[in-house]
């Protein structure tokens, strides 16, 4: 079964708006990572957040982690057409450091 599952499955917004996507997982984790995948290309790492961290920022990206709710969120502020992609969360399963990816959120930013 999936360790991490993203929500929503698809999201369509206007350029300049903020986009929020969520990831829920089932078992305790050490780290959670967010990746972006443009159509037909490899995955690009965005942010890694450790279980003892609550929030991390990188440019227009903000990731939060709530271990009590077993969930994480990725916020993209002031979205651009170039942000159109699929976004995946990847969680390790306890102490294994084996990452399991969710099914992704497909974000479409309309110009």
């Amino acid at each position, binding site marked *: 079964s999936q360790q991490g599952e993203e929500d929503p499955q698809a999201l369509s917004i206007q350029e300049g708006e903020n986009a929020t996507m969520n990831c829920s997982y089932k078992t305790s984790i050490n*780290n959670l990572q967010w990746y972006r995948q443009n159509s037909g290309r490899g995955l690009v790492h965005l942010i890694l957040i450790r279980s003892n961290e609550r929030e991390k920022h990188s440019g227009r990206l903000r990731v939060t982690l709530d271990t009590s709710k077993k969930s994480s969120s990725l916020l993209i502020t002031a979205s651009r057409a170039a942000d159109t992609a699929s976004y995946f969360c990847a969680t390790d399963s306890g102490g294994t450091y084996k990452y399991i990816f969710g099914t992704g959120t497909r974000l479409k930013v309309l110009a």
Partner: protein
Amino acid sequence: EAGVAQSPRYKIIEKRQSVAFWCNPISGHATLYWYQQILGQGPKLLIQFQNNGVVDDSQLPKDRFSAERLKGVDSTLKIQPAKLEDSAVYLCASSPRVQETQYFGPGTRLLVL
């Protein structure tokens, strides 16, 4: 710094044929991963190497898939014989250590007819 290299980028084969994919990780990265990504799904880990040893291959269909990592650097993934359901993108990734960020290659898109 050069990224993860994979070849070929595309491959079309008939079912029951064999195919091999090659991956060259980022220099100095001890951990190497092979993932299978079926259209519309997230990547699924097939096998994870630490240097030239296998850490996890629990989701590798061992009756048809095999992988090796030569001298703890390059790696090859082989499918023999291929089935229609093997059509997917095969992604290779590497990281300095198991806990660290994974860097992905561009992938090999396989179509089995």
